[in-house]
């Protein structure tokens, strides 16, 4: 009988994790492609924000988190949201304004979450989610929990906010098990990094906060999985807060109305402009973890999931002003009746 050596097991688990994460990336990519078409078809009101090109980073974070952890994703984390456990339908419901979705039409697009499940719903103001996650971790410490981490994401632009700074410093003072995943995707809307920061590398901020700093190639899923995995494990093991900075290019407009024509053509040919999804597929084939045909099957499978989610969400009721519960307070007796 064959005996599998530890070495073989390691290879096996590497393969499994890589493929599982790749699947989340694929689901994110194709579901966002669908959102883009829906937007172009006028089926979505407001902005559509894609994480195209950042799926490897985002998904690698999501798969490294588990139940009981806190996750506050940001603009470009469709992959991380799915990997963390958000049902595909919820993104569709939120974009399509379903009354049955988590936000019930009250907020839309990326402004969604289920805080009760450790999955926080971002406010638009950049930097503001970091301290919320820090506070959640303080709470878990008060409550005597163990084996938990909190994670959130930020961009090269969001790191310029005072809110971000205050929260990073606070998290370090409290030695919290916080992972901050920063995507330096070269632009904040139209603003290039040269107008956003002046340090050589954003990871150089880690030392000033008292974070452990890590750099990753955001186009390389293997690197993302390994390094983010290490950072999450370190935080979980009491190693204190971790800053992971990935270099990448935003492979979409800021939102779907934006053709990103301002992106420097030279930048488009830099190594960090590589599409992480295609790169992952190439590696899968190179390692012959899957065959071309398997990838095609997978893609169909994922497409079907997306079709189902979209058609379900589209059939769902939208909010109705008449029956809406117009109340910003959970304490009904404290609602100011004279403002109605």
């Amino acid at each position: 009988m064959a005996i599998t050596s530890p070495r073989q097991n390691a290879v096996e688990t590497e393969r499994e994790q890589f493929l599982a994460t790749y699947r989340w990336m694929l689901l994110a990519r194709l579901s966002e492609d669908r959102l883009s078409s829906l937007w172009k078809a006028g089926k979505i009101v407001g902005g559509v924000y894609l994480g195209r090109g950042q799926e490897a980073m985002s998904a690698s974070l999501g798969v490294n988190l588990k139940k009981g952890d806190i996750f506050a994703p940001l603009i470009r984390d469709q992959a991380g949201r799915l990997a963390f456990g958000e049902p595909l339908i919820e993104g569709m419901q939120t974009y399509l304004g379903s009354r049955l979705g988590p936000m019930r039409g009250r907020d839309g697009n990326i402004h969604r979450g289920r805080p009760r499940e450790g999955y926080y719903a971002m406010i638009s103001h950049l930097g503001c989610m970091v301290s919320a996650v820090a506070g959640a971790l303080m709470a878990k410490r008060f409550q005597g929990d163990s084996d938990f981490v909190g994670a959130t994401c930020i961009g090269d632009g969001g790191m310029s906010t005072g809110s971000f700074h205050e929260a990073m410093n606070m998290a370090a003072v409290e030695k919290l098990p916080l992972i901050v995943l920063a995507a330096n995707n070269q632009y904040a809307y139209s603003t290039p990094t040269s107008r956003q920061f002046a340090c050589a590398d954003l990871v150089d901020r880690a030392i000033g906060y008292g974070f452990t700093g890590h750099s990753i190639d955001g186009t390389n899923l293997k690197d993302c999985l390994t390094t983010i995995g290490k950072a999450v494990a370190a935080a979980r093991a009491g190693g204190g807060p971790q800053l992971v900075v990935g270099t990448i290019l935003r492979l979409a407009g800021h939102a779907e109305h934006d053709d990103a024509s301002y992106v420097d053509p030279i930048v488009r040919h830099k190594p960090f402009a590589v599409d992480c999804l295609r790169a992952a597929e190439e590696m899968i084939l190179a390692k012959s973890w899957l065959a071309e045909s398997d990838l095609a099957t997978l893609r169909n499978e994922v497409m079907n999931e997306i079709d189902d989610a979209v058609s379900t969400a589209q059939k769902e009721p939208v909010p109705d002003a008449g029956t809406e519960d117009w109340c910003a307070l959970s304490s009904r007796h404290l609602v100011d009746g004279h403002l109605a």
Partner: protein
Amino acid sequence: MSITYLEAIREAQAKALADDPRVYIYGQDVGEFGGAFKATKNLAKEFPGRVLDAPISEDAIVGSAIGAAIEGMRPIIEMQFADFSSVGFNQIVNHAATLYWRTEVPCPITVRLPSGGNLGSGPFHSQCMEALYAHYPGLIVMTPATVEDAYSMLLEAVAIDDPVVFCEHKYLYYHLKAESLPTDALPAGKARIARPGRDATIVTYSAMLHEALAAAEELALDAYQIEVVDLRTVKPIDTDTILASVARTGRLLAVGEAFPWGGVTAEVIARVVSEGFELLDAPPQRLNARDTPIPYHPNLWAAHRPTAPAIVNALRNLLRM
């Protein structure tokens, strides 16, 4: 035994910490030092690990309270001065205040704002910010004017499932004393007739209540009976109690310490005239601080905010109308 407004706030926090393991206090210098005003004196010792010094990061302080509240805690945040909440403003009005509406998850945080003017405090240590917070949906704004309310309303604030901005007045910290702590109290959202009368109604709150009562005393010498309504909470506003009082007196003067454009006094008057126009025998008047930053020098400060003499004048004019 006698207890000050400040001690009442300290006692309320001690009780909240003792009664509810979900409560903790976070703010600058609130720990061993006991806070800039000593509102958390000895609490760090009595409740180890639950009264924590924060860095000078108001935005993150409030943001962290929101996350902790989501996870089931009941944070009490102390701003060192209300004025500095301007840099925690966004987390309060856009994050804490919108959480329940957006996600159905309530946000039970209490943000204590040491508010209002005091001798020599100047433009950045004297502000009354209740109007800013009351303007935003999703917040409850308390403005206790008595030792009893400072105690019972702070306990209530901690118990309420929604974010409460607790405007405690620094001028009352030491000036105001009571014999003992209350055992029962009016619920939040209910105003109180602080002094009954029949000739005119003053609607006010916080430190201005005492200026209003002094003014009413003085007019009593001329046999005028001035009713004084203490709002207690400015969001929500107990409009029914105000209307009932105006129905008795026919005259209304709204007094507040905040800046004159907008704010509580305008809101009170707008409600009374739109819902109780026919109750009024004279044009409702208001008295606020002046439309300039709050001056440092006592001579200027005394003329910047409403005081008993100014209220007396306003009342005499109102009674003449």
